[in-house]
């Protein structure tokens, strides 16, 4: 697969310091994820649980193939997780615009008749805004949360992708998560 080769090379280049590689990689990953998400959004509603992390995983297999170094895999996942966040947020916004005819928010999330979908979209937008606020005072924690929640990345992968220790990821995630829940409550 030509695509797989390209992605693998981009990952290797990026790892060896070529910052431009990331700029090339991101749109590739983003497009693949969007394509996959669209496909699932079109397809029959399945009885199983659809996971964002599953999409990331599938995108990885499709773009990079299985035979990729572990470190590259972590970096790919980081790119994919951030892309996944954007895709879902874009979707949530579009969705809300459609359903609300111009984005007029109801007084409360759970006003009678407000569909669960709207609430899920709103929740996600609230999460997104909170993550953006966190990024202003502590960008790394915000990033750790994104990689964890949108990419399903393990502590080790996150540590590898961000160049910090696993213990740091542990601490970041614990506080970041508590902070985020606090913001949402």
């Amino acid at each position, binding site marked *: 697969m030509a695509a797989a080769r390209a992605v693998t090379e981009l990952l290797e280049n990026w790892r060896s310091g070529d910052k431009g590689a990331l700029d090339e990689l991101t749109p590739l990953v983003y497009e693949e994820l969007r394509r996959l998400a669209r496909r699932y959004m079109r397809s*029959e509603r399945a009885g199983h649980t*659809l996971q964002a992390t599953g999409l990331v995983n599938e995108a990885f297999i499709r773009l990079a193939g299985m035979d990729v170094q572990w470190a590259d895999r972590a970096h790919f996942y980081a790119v994919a997780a951030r892309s996944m966040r954007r895709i879902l947020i874009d*979707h949530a916004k579009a969705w809300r615009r459609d359903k609300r005819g111009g984005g007029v928010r109801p007084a409360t999330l759970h006003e009678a008749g407000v569909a669960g*979908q709207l609430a899920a979209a709103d929740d996600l937008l609230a999460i997104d805004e909170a993550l953006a606020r966190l990024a202003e005072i502590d960008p790394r924690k915000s990033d750790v949360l994104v990689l964890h929640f949108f990419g399903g990345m393990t502590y080790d992968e996150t540590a590898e992708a961000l160049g910090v220790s696993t213990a740091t990821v542990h601490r970041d995630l614990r506080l970041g998560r508590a902070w985020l829940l606090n913001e*949402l*409550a």
Partner: protein
Amino acid sequence: MNSPELNRERWARVEHLFDEVAEMSPTGRAAYLASACGNDLELREYIESLARSDIAKNTIIEDSIRGLLELAVPDLRSNSDVIGERIGPYRVVRAIGSGGMGVVYLAERADEQFRQQVAIKLVRQRLIDPEIEQRLVSERQILANLDHPNIARLFDGGTTTDGTPYLVMEYIDGLPIDDYCDGRRLSIHERLALFRTICSAVHYAHQNLVVHRDIKPTNILVTEDGTPKLLDFGIAKLLDAGGAATDGLTRDGAVMLTPENAAPEQVLNGRITTATDTYALGILLYRLLTGHRPCQVGSNPREMALAICEQIPERASAVVTRRTDTSDSQASGDAPMTPELISRYRSTTLEKLVRRLKGDLDNIVQVALRKEPARRYRSVNEFSEDIRMHLASLPVLARPDSWHYRSGKFVRRHVAGVAMSSMLVALLAAFGVAMVVQNKRIVQERDTAKEVSTFLEEIFMAPDPGNARGLDITAKEILAKGADRISDQLGDRPVIQATLMGTIGRVYFNLGEYEPSIAMLEESLRIRRQALGEQHPDVAAGKNELAVSLIRTADFERARQLLEEALAQNRREYGESSTEAAANLYNLAALHQATGELDEAERFAGSSIAIYAQGGDRYAADLAEAKNALARILHDKNDLDGAETLEREAIALVKTHLGEDHPFMAYYLQNLAVVLQTKGDIDAAEAMLYESIAATRKVLGEEHSLLGGSLVRLGTLLHNKGNSILLRRRFAMLLPCTPGPGARSIRSSPTI
């Protein structure tokens, strides 16, 4: 939660403090923060609230992400897209069926070299992780190797261009077995013969370590010439060396299976073995013989699970006389059944049909449909053989069940599983139903025999979380073996025998196994009466213990009688204010609370408190329990101030005398939270719930059902508070909490 304005410096401080207190207990944390934050109350409160969020462990973020993805997937049925398309060398002609895993199409070889019709099953588009894909491949390989005249062959498989996995199978032009039998007016004899052919196919699969897991009429097609073919191993599983289906996909299967054909162990996420197929074959046979379904499963998951796990099917010979009314049959999708129609389909009369089914066939079906896998036929082959014996008018293995097994024991043992597998929050909360702790005062040591028994008791008491703070699952086996040994070997030492039986009875009680508990305690009491005489104090103690179990099974009259006898006896023997009498009074309080006689309950609880309060430190635990009990009674009587005072006293007693890590803490804290909530002091109730959740996690573990109860309560409370964004997550919050066996050893009521 209003968070303070955070800048980078302040955030660094927050981070430092949070890391410091993350592993502390609520009390330790409060103390630490009080000194570390000094006058900065805002900071202190903020760290506290972060720590609470840390504990709450809800999955709001994960759920929102997943929820949006899922909800964004529209309810489109785009199957028709595939018609006319090529899949591998085949062209899709039309859809011929659909199931949990996918849609089945008739397809023809497209190259026209030789005409061949095949069935192609498109597995529903799903996210495939490499591991699952790998398993799919190996599973396909093994199914392809199943070569039996009554199993539809698997030819090939692959993935379509868009990545959807598919299977190519032998196309069977036939009718579902039930339609076939009715259409051909097959007699009972002919139906049994056909059924045995199916059994041979299933048995063959089992011998190849494949369990089908979804046997039902639509998966068994009978061709024009009368050959039955078993299809759709879609959710079939390979058995491991231990005879259980490999996990992972088992869970998927449990979700996707057809409810009316599900075995109890599938509903309960239990071990899937060949016995699961035996059960499904039992359902099939029941339907072929009677035209009815053995279980009426409702649409609501709770009723469904209970029906499958608890409902004993009506006898085949009785059900055929029944007329399904139109609404039933509409609900189940069946045609209305009348006894006349059923008989005619079987080329017989109702009278003859009933006679034909009575006896052997009734029993055979019941054995296959037993709730406990281990009590069904040992193999499909044995099942089939029993039918052969019946057809040959030889004695069959199947015997009617004794009453003992009809009491829904299975579901009671697995009630936690029911709750979790179908998210039965209501059932989960039902664990909170008041359970009385027995204040057993084992009589003073008097001889050396007592030492032996004490030693043994210690071994047996291990499963009581009050002693061991944890539960070994194999304890039940130890118990059962111990009970046998005691019955067999200690017959010449009745006093020790009775004591040990009493112990086992109590442990069974703590495990929620009330029937064996009562059986053991009855026997213990009987032996004591015989060996020691009616007036002996040990007999009074035995009565007290037995009464506690009887209250649990709502045998209130018997319990009342025993307790009153024991009380009179203890008062005579030990005095009005003896702690022995207090134990009886305590249990009488519980009894009256259970029957709703709250004034009496209050009086009895008050009397027991008065006695224990005189007893000194030795009786601190009993005093705490009695106060907790009275608090619950007062709560029921709506004396909330009184309830709060008593609950706080009980908590203080536990802290002082038993330590913070005692299981009572978890329960009492939650009880206090409930009182506060009822009083309308929501903030205090919330704080108390966080404390109780922390204590439960620490003392009883992540898996204890009390945790589920607390989390539900917290969710409700937050909802009432207006924290609506969290509300939808409260069911999800339950997920990490799977009640283990310890779930049933609740010592006192978590719900008031």
